[in-house]
């Protein structure tokens, strides 16, 4: 990955492609690349849907290699949903293919004047930007099917559905999986709306004629990767739990802990949770001829995804993840997996974030647009988004906008981004991350549970109160670093518990780039990324007062533990003091 492509969509003579060297961005990938470019090059007060914003697409530092789990793709910009800096990442094939073509980043800049819609074709011969107005308002599944007729099956597609074209704030960017289904989404923060604002409907990435990226020390890299894979396979989470049940294995546990937000965060337990659980879902998938074990990109050994079929054995959608099952399920009082699967398919097809959309429907239910537990109404509301009706445009702009339009007080957002599936009154520590992350409420912002082995910030006593602040800080640092490698965050379970697996990861990075890497280097990278993101947000007008949860979390105790969020403001303000 030795070059960066910049595509000026607003150039006077039409879109203009410039390919240059890495310059100051040498050695970066994934979130490090997207955030440092946005922080340096985007005016923090720019309108997120305007010409000044940039959409940065970057594979991870190890993407495109023979290494396992290296297929995450980061997309960054100023978020139209939150107004903050944004990095959203996804699996699928795009990262591997783009990296093999040598691009450390593809940056969409500017904004065309007219209504023309474009597709971008990237292959070994270069980059073409082509007008294709026949694709207008197509949704992701039919869009990819159409593109496959022209570009075939040996490419990766990045696309936006109608939501992105309409610049809805919940719009995502879809990346195709190995079966060329548009199921893996850079979902959070409205990155699809930014791509839509630049009038780019699809990016077709063809790595024909390229080879795997060569490591500096092939033997050492191969050996490190072998040890890394062994570590993943022998760990009970990455080798057993996730392959068997996927992330939805969390439903039962969160419900048991009383931390499963139900009916728009009114209570912490849902009576229908067993019907939605990963255990139930996996059994159903297998019984219907689908699969409970499936990888989102080639080279994945965890295989946490699956295939969800209907009762007649026909494909409905990929295995909905825990957050999706929650947002469209318990959050809305819905306990039917078939309904959740249909909504998941619709989200992927329209191109919206499943967390934002599910939370929004729950807020709409709170507003009285439907009853909690009304499956048909939930589908009907999402159909409004699909059709682009005025109501659908409101809903498609997320929970915060919907709450304002309908006068709802209990709106679970931070920096206008919907909270994920863990109630911060039951799990106080995750509330610290929700409140303070640079990204708006985001469970994956502090997800890399490897801080103990990284020794980020020194040893922490996890049984002391102040540990929650330090743990959140350290988790956010570690996550920013792993998000930069292109590694799936789920590797964190194995590297947390198995020092030899963490060492194997360091050895992969070191042998590939011909450097010696230590845990300190990883920590330094994470801090560098977070500092740049915080600085951007500060210049965009965000202060410590934005690092707070909505007041209802402080005022409304949640059953069964009857707790409120108890972290003090001054403690939250201490998260980024390092």
């Amino acid at each position, binding site marked *: 990955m030795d070059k960066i492509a910049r595509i000026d969509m607003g150039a006077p003579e039409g879109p203009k492609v410039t390919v240059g060297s890495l310059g100051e961005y040498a050695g970066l990938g994934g979130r490090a690349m997207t955030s440092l470019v946005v922080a340096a090059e985007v005016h923090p007060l720019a309108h997120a849907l305007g010409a000044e914003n940039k959409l940065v697409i970057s594979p991870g530092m190890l993407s495109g290699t023979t290494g396992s789990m290296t297929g995450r793709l980061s997309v960054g910009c100023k978020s139209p949903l939150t107004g903050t800096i944004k990095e959203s990442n996804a699996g699928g094939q795009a990262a591997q293919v783009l990296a093999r073509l040598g691009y450390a980043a593809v940056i969409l800049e500017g904004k065309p004047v007219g209504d023309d819609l474009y597709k971008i074709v990237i292959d070994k011969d270069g980059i073409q930007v082509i007008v294709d107005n026949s694709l207008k308002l197509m949704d992701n599944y039919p869009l990819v099917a159409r593109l496959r007729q022209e570009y075939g099956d040996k490419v990766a597609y990045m696309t936006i559905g109608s939501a992105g074209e309409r610049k809805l704030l919940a719009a995502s960017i879809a990346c195709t999986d190995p079966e060329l289904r548009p199921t893996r989404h850079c979902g959070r923060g409205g990155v699809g709306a930014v791509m839509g604002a630049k009038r780019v409907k699809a990016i077709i990435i063809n790595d024909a004629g390229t080879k795997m990226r060569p490591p500096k020390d092939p033997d050492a890299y191969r050996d490190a990767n072998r040890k890394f894979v062994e570590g993943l396979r022998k*760990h*009970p*989470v990455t080798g*057993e*739990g*996730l392959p*068997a*049940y996927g*992330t939805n*294995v*969390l439903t*039962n*546990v*969160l419900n*048991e*802990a*009383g*931390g499963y937000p139900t009916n728009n965060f009114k209570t912490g*337990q849902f009576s229908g949770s*067993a019907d939605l*659980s*990963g*255990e*139930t879902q996996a*059994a159903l998938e297998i019984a219907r001829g689908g699969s409970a074990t499936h990888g989102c990109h080639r080279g994945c050994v965890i295989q*946490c995804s699956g295939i969800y079929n209907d009762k007649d054995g026909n494909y409905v959608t990929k295995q909905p993840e*825990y957050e999706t099952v929650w947002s469209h399920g318990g959050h809305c009082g819905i306990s039917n997996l078939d309904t959740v699967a249909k909504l998941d398919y619709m989200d992927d097809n329209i191109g919206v974030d499943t967390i934002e959309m599910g939370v929004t429907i729950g807020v709409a239910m709170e507003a009285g647009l439907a009853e909690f537990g009304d499956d048909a109404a939930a589908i009907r509301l999402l159909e409004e988004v699909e059709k682009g009706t005025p109501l659908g445009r409101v809903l498609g702009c997320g929970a915060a906008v919907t709450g304002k339009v309908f006068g709802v007080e209990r709106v679970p957002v931070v920096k206008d981004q919907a909270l994920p599936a*863990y109630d911060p009154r*039951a*799990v*106080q*520590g*995750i509330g610290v991350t929700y409140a303070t992350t640079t990204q708006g409420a985001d*469970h994956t912002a*502090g*997800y890399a*549970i490897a*801080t*103990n082995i990284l020794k980020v910030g020194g040893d*922490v*006593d*996890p*049984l*002391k*109160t102040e*540990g*929650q602040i330090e*743990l*959140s800080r350290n*988790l956010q640092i570690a996550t920013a670093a792993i998000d930069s490698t292109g590694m799936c965050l*789920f590797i964190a*379970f194995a590297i*947390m518990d198995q020092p030899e697996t963490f060492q194997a990861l360091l050895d992969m990075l070191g042998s590939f780039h011909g450097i010696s890497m230590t845990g300190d280097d990883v920590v330094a990278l994470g801090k560098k990324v977070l500092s740049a993101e915080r600085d951007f947000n500060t210049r965009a007008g965000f202060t410590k007062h934005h690092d707070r949860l909505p007041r209802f979390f402080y005022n409304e105790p949640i059953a*069964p*533990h009857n*707790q409120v969020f*108890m972290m003090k403001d001054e403690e939250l303000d201490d998260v980024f003091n390092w």
Partner: protein
Amino acid sequence: MTLETVALHLAAGQLNTFFPLLQQGVVVPATVGCSLKSLLCDQFAIPAEYVANRITTVFVDNRPVDDLDRTLVQDGSRVTLSGAMPGLVGATMRRGGFYAALRQGISHAADHIEGVGERGCIRVKLFNLLLGELGPLILAHGQILDQDELTALLRHFPGQYKKTSADTGRVLLTVSFME
């Protein structure tokens, strides 16, 4: 308390029929007033090594447990057993885990245990990998059902069971599986 006993002897492949029931919890007779460790290792005869390494997430009455030796099991307690969970919150719920601080406020506080046991009932829930691994053991130990629950369950196994005593309001169902 003497209950009518119903015994089922099933093919191993029929274990998963019980998974929905085990997820929602089965009521089992037990000596209560003891530690959770004692319940698992002494009464259920789960090997200590398995308890230490596989049952990594435990709840009693919705509260995540860190110390099995200092967690009291009482009549009516709800004991939930799970394998290792993914995600930050999964790691947070882990027994004695590095991230236990993140769930302060809901964790199970250490109990004082005097060691005087008496008979009672507890509800046991099994999740994820433990369904297949501990399900046979819990089902063999016996679960207490009312007649309606039993009737609904036995519809899955026509002609595969035998009653061993007279009808009463509740029954003790034991299930064994062929190798």
